[in-house]
């Protein structure tokens, strides 16, 4: 493991120290716990949007804290859910009286810790609702859609829900947006090289020189198949068709396309992938209304990418286009 770190068990604290110093205009850390909140939290009259999860996904999660997106993030160890008290303190810090919405991915640790935090928060009289992302179609068959993991589709949920909250939406309205976007979002990822969790020191998986992991998760979770590396156009087409079939997306649908780099894959390759996705969607008569290409939700230095499609309606579009001012996303 060749990483620019010090003690593997200090990486999150040291990263946070740097991050907070660079982005002090946007965020501050809570005294007692590892939670990062908007400098202007709680924003009066606004529903508080809280998410959290393991570290190692930059720019997610903390890179999207700010006006129009997230109010607070509970920060866990690398790929490990944050503890309940961090989530609870985050909730307290952003609650202006209109309640707090927890947004999380569908990971055992996150689900448990957010549930415990939710109980504690409610015990303290804070109205809390939660919405769980499940966009990764490779993580479970459609029959068990509720077992699917949330991946980069969460970015689109944060953006839209954040905009809804900023515009004065109620806790229920914000939750409804999260659920609508999640229901209309599908993601599929592939990896050509693994990442290494500092504490473990060895790669999360091993691939042959000509293999890729098809359907990989955001932490190196095994996908649905190990396939031989083929030209980008073939991979992108296969993935896009599988995504289209899953929702299913229909001719005439308006969609947002998100190509997310998992860490080590150059933007050059992401745009080559986007090019093919666009060709496939055009052929299917599915209209691309919004496009996002880059790194939104990485897995340390994993090499690979994911393709996300979201079926749009006028509300989702206007929420996607609403202003945002965060360290890593400004609109």
């Amino acid at each position, binding site marked *: 493991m060749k990483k620019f770190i010090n003690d593997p068990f200090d990486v999150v604290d040291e990263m946070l120290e740097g991050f907070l110093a660079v982005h002090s205009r946007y965020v501050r850390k809570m005294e007692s716990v590892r939670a990062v909140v908007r400098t202007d939290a709680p924003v009066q009259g606004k529903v508080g949007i809280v998410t959290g999860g393991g570290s190692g996904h930059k720019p997610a999660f903390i890179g999207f804290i700010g006006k129009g997106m997230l109010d607070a993030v509970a920060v866990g160890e690398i790929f490990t859910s944050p503890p309940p008290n961090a989530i609870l303190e985050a909730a307290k810090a952003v609650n202006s009286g209109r309640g707090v919405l927890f947004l999380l991915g569908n990971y055992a640790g996150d689900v448990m*810790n957010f549930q415990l935090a939710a109980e504690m928060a409610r015990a303290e009289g804070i109205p809390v609702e939660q919405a769980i992302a499940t966009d990764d179609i490779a993580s479970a068959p459609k029959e068990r859609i509720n077992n699917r993991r949330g991946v980069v589709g969460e970015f689109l949920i944060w953006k839209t829900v954040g905009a809804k909250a900023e515009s004065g939406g109620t806790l229920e309205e914000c939750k409804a947006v999260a659920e609508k976007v999640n229901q209309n979002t599908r993601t599929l990822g592939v990896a050509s090289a693994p990442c290494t969790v500092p504490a473990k020191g060895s790669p999360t998986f091993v691939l042959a020189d000509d293999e890729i992991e098809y359907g990989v998760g955001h932490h190196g979770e095994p996908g649905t198949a190990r396939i031989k590396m083929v030209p980008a156009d073939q991979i992108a087409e296969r993935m896009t068709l599988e995504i289209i079939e899953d929702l299913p997306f229909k001719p005439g649908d308006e969609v947002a396309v998100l190509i997310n780099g998992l860490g080590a894959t150059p933007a050059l390759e992401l745009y080559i992938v986007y090019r093919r996705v666009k060709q496939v969607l055009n052929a299917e008569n599915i209209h691309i209304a919004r496009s996002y290409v880059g790194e939104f939700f990485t897995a340390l230095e994993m090499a690979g990418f994911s393709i996300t499609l979201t079926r749009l309606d006028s509300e989702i579009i206007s929420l996607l286009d609403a202003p945002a001012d965060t360290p890593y996303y400004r609109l």
Partner: protein
Amino acid sequence: MADKITSDDILRIIKDMCDTLEQEKEYLSELDGAIGDGDHGVNMAKCFRDIRKQLPNYENKDIGTILKSVGMIVLNSVGGAMGALYGTMFLRLAQEATGKEELKLSDLVKMFEAAEKGVREIGKAEVGDKTMLDTLAPAVASLEEAEQNGKPLADALADFEVAARKGMESTRDLVAKVGRSSRLGTRTLGHQDAGATSCYFILRAFSRVVRSEQTK
């Protein structure tokens, strides 16, 4: 007074956990590395280090207070599934021991029944899913049985440890159904579950300490 567990015993038990989980750090991470993300030993060691720091403050505290503090630390130090699960386990143990200076076998049974219930509620795992529950559930059952058969505390805890160990070992032949390793499906066969193993070390601390008392 070997039919009772005192606050001092609980202190020694917690201390035994701290020592064991420090010693077994590598082993547990190795087990987790085989079918998980390899951090279980570190996670456990980390939070029991935090607990060790508190040991001095536990002097002359009642058992419920000690276990509650332990539970809060476990719950909030490392996070992850284990923080929630073991945190809940210790907090439920504490609840049933609120204000108590000593524990009879019957108290211990109630405490562990509550603990198992808590772990099941939060983790939604079943026995056979290849988790810490595969260690905890049979151990609790054996404790209930021992009580029904009127066994003395030390013998009951001996059964408790044996049942826990058997439960732990049973995970080697199970396919993980929940948690991180469940992703590997049948690839998890042949590997002993890390959480089941740390759970064994934690439960074993009770019998080890109490029975060493015996032999004094």
